[in-house]
């Protein structure tokens, strides 16, 4: 089942498009370094190393035989949950802020969450400031660690083996660190940063997976110092069309070892990565402002670096809102050895279009405006003849794109009371007149000097009026919000 580049990245259109890749003889322009585009860049000289504030207030320990989920459910925000070595068979979900799951490693033994091939995900989190460290996750069907809009996360020093579709998958989150993890045996990307901003992926080892590290529909990401080997594809920067966040830009791939990514592609039918030709070192598809710097890219049999647009990938959907081209790609100095030695027809065709033969390090297909390359003469290339000369050599000006831990937002009590009243109470109560409950005016007459009594009543109402239905308890609001609602209700004048 040969799918070509990306189930046809490809170059199904190679013959047709070949004319576009004839070498351009004009002397290349020199492009300056792109500006640091991260928002709220930290003060110079003080790079952010930790994003998950605030400091924990308390600590609990889970022993083997205990339930991690029970500890999470019982935990207040600000709790460190220490997990002792042993075997745990469960899925853990974290729908609250400021929770840290920290494995205790004793004499090389970690706590192991074992899905035994029958549980879905090992860890799901939607809270902010979640830290997950020192765990071993094995044999889940969905993901190892999946974030759903949690911000300020740190996922560190975990061993993730065969956890299904993704190993570590933060999605829709801002400001996160994924570092020192060892991830293998994953049917899609071992580490997949999806629809996220300000992410740092460093010092991980990813192997024996369909894709190593994927930055998709995300911005301001640095992927550095990772060991990416024996996957079907190594490093990916994508825009996947059809997702609700439409851009990928400002991605730095630097100082990674991208070696021997020749694993058979065992991606699920229909998945985008199933179309990646085995033997791809780095793949840029439709992503903009991608910098490839200082990597060792070797022994990838199809290609070292492949840059394509959406038109060259046949297995993706149509999305007029996604820009299809990989623009402003910068290939700085990289060490490339022995790539493209057993490549696919499409790559050969692109080479031939430039009357070249041999083992391809870098191939570009599809428009790529504003792109540049340093020392191009060192590589075997196709499609980069019209790339400018990069006017910068490195990205040392940006340590990372992380943001300082954001302090919790302070919401004034009056604002909270108003919004809770409008968002909830106003379905039954108006100032004057009858909806489902009595008018606010009548309530004011009863409680005007005692908002706490009103707050207590709404938590536990009793039937008071024969001509009105009994009010349902609003005990799901915390006591502060109930009091704020009561105060707001008593302050209304129309």
């Amino acid at each position, binding site marked *: 089942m040969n799918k070509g580049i990306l189930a046809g990245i490809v170059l199904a259109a190679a013959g047709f498009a070949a004319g576009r890749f004839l070498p351009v003889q004009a002397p290349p322009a020199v492009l300056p370094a792109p500006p640091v585009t991260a928002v709220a860049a930290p003060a110079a000289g003080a790079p952010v190393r930790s994003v998950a504030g605030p400091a924990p207030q308390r600590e609990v320990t889970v022993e083997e035989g205990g339930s991690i989920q029970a500890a999470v459910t019982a935990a207040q925000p600000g709790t460190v949950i220490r997990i002792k070595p042993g075997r745990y068979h469960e899925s853990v979900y974290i729908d609250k802020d400021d929770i840290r799951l920290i494995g205790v490693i004793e004499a090389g033994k970690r706590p192991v969450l074992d899905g035994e091939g029958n549980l879905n995900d090992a860890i799901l989190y939607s809270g902010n400031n979640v830290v997950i460290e020192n765990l071993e996750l094995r044999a889940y069907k969905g993901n190892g660690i999946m974030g759903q809009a949690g911000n300020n996360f740190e996922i560190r020093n975990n061993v993730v083996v065969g956890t299904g579709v993704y190993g570590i998958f933060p999605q829709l989150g801002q400001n996160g660190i994924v570092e020192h993890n060892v991830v293998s045996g994953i049917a899609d990307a071992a580490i997949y940063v999806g629809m996220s901003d300000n992410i740092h992926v460093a010092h991980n080892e990813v192997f024996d997976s369909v894709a190593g590290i994927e930055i998709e529909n995300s911005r301001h990401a640095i992927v550095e110092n990772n060991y990416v080997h024996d996957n079907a594809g190594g490093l990916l920067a994508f825009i996947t069309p059809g997702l609700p966040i439409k851009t990928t830009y400002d991605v730095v791939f630097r100082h990674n070892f991208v070696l021997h990514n020749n694993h058979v592609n065992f991606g699920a039918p229909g998945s985008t990565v199933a179309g990646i030709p085995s033997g791809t070192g780095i793949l840029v598809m439709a992503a903009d402002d991608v910098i490839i710097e200082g990597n060792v890219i070797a022994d990838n049999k199809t290609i070292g670096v492949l840059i394509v647009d959406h038109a060259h990938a046949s297995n993706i*959907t149509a999305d007029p809102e996604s820009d299809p081209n990989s623009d402003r790609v910068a290939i700085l100095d990289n060490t490339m050895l022995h790539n493209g030695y057993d490549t696919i027809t499409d790559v050969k065709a692109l080479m031939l279009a430039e009357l070249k033969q041999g083992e391809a390090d870098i191939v570009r297909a599809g428009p790529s405006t504003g792109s540049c390359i340093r020392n191009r003469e060192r590589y075997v290339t196709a499609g980069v003849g019209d790339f400018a000369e990069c006017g910068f050599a490195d990205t040392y000006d940006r340590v990372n794109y992380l943001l300082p831990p954001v302090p919790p937002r302070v919401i004034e009590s009056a604002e909270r009371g108003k919004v809770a009243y*409008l968002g909830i109470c106003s379905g039954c109560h108006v100032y004057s007149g009858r909806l489902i409950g009595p008018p606010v005016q009548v309530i004011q007459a009863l409680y005007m000097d005692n908002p706490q009594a009103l707050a207590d009543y709404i938590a536990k109402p009793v039937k008071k009026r024969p001509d009105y239905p009994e009010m349902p308890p609003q005990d799901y609001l915390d006591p502060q919000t109930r009091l704020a609602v009561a105060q707001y209700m008593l302050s209304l004048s129309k």
Partner: protein
Amino acid sequence: MRVAAALLALLALAGAAPRASAEEHFTLADACPPGFELNAAGTCVLRNLYQFYDSLQGAGLGGTRTHLPPNREGFTPAQIDLGRYLFFDPLLSADGRISCASCHDPELGFSDGRARAEGGDGSDIGRAAPTLWNVAFLKRLFWDARAQSLEEQMLGPLFSQHEMANTPEKLLGSLRGSEEYRRLFAQAFPGVGEDISLAQLQTALTAFQSSLISLNSRYDRYALGYHAALDEREIAGLNVFRSFVARCAECHTPPLFTNQQIAVIGTPEPEGRPLDVGAEKTFNAPKLKGGFKVPTLRNIALTAPYMHSGRFATLRETVEFYTGGRGHAVPPGVPMYLHWHIWDPQLTPQELDLLVVFLQTLTDQSFSPRVPERLPSGLAPFGRRATRGTAIADGKDNKAEDRS
């Protein structure tokens, strides 16, 4: 004109003052509907606890505590209330027999309980009437995403010969022929002075529909931090829903339970119906053949049957579709670029049950608008009403074997 408008406004005030005359004259609300705050400009803006959270790129997509996407708002209480009367008024149809509410009935989750909508002429409209709950947040309307606004969308049913079958001339003639409506439009659009316009009608109907907010379900209480709002099975269902095995939340993304994208998932049409190409036509894109806008799942338990043409009678059948195997219901020989999240998750019967249990926690009608007891046109509210249970598709045989 200005004088006339002022006079009309005075008349409106006069009509409002004595209770006794309330039977003759209609008055429009001066307060915002539930969930909205009247701002200094005199317009209604949505207030909700979700506003205390962030969302990536302001997209309003995420997990439990995520800001909502941008919504239509900023209408006056009078415009919203006028829209309410218009919404229920069969005067808007050519023969005065159906209203917006005939197919978007508040007692049926602002849908109609039918597999596919029934036109004013009794014809099969071909697609299911979608709920209007939270329609204020949608950037594209219709199953095939062919309209960009409610104003644009409503021109479809109003002037389709199979639906309300009206024409702009006749519709404006009917409204202008109503003394009450002339008065109410002048009140809702003060200072304009001119005759009732189509744009005013569009604004009023948009204003009303944008006020249909459903964000107080038991799920919301859980999401906003009160974890006892859901029981163990419901939480287990939530975890199946958002797991990367079932992947429901990847497209039905909280807090609205839609990511508002087009997805080609390859659901079967009811027996005997031809394939609906959906968004392929809208975008002139063969890759979107069979693609439809991802619908919200809020109040989904109220709006059976399911999918664009009502193939599935129950939520259980609907969720089972997703575990039938990638493309199992695509007609043979039809090239369809199925969404990458459509795979073979092998959900267990227990997991399917849990999904249904969870979906039922998304029900909330606490901000249901009041149905008018009478209308400015003098017609009876609603016109024809749908009855739940009519024309529900037989979903027993939705399995792969009868398709491929």
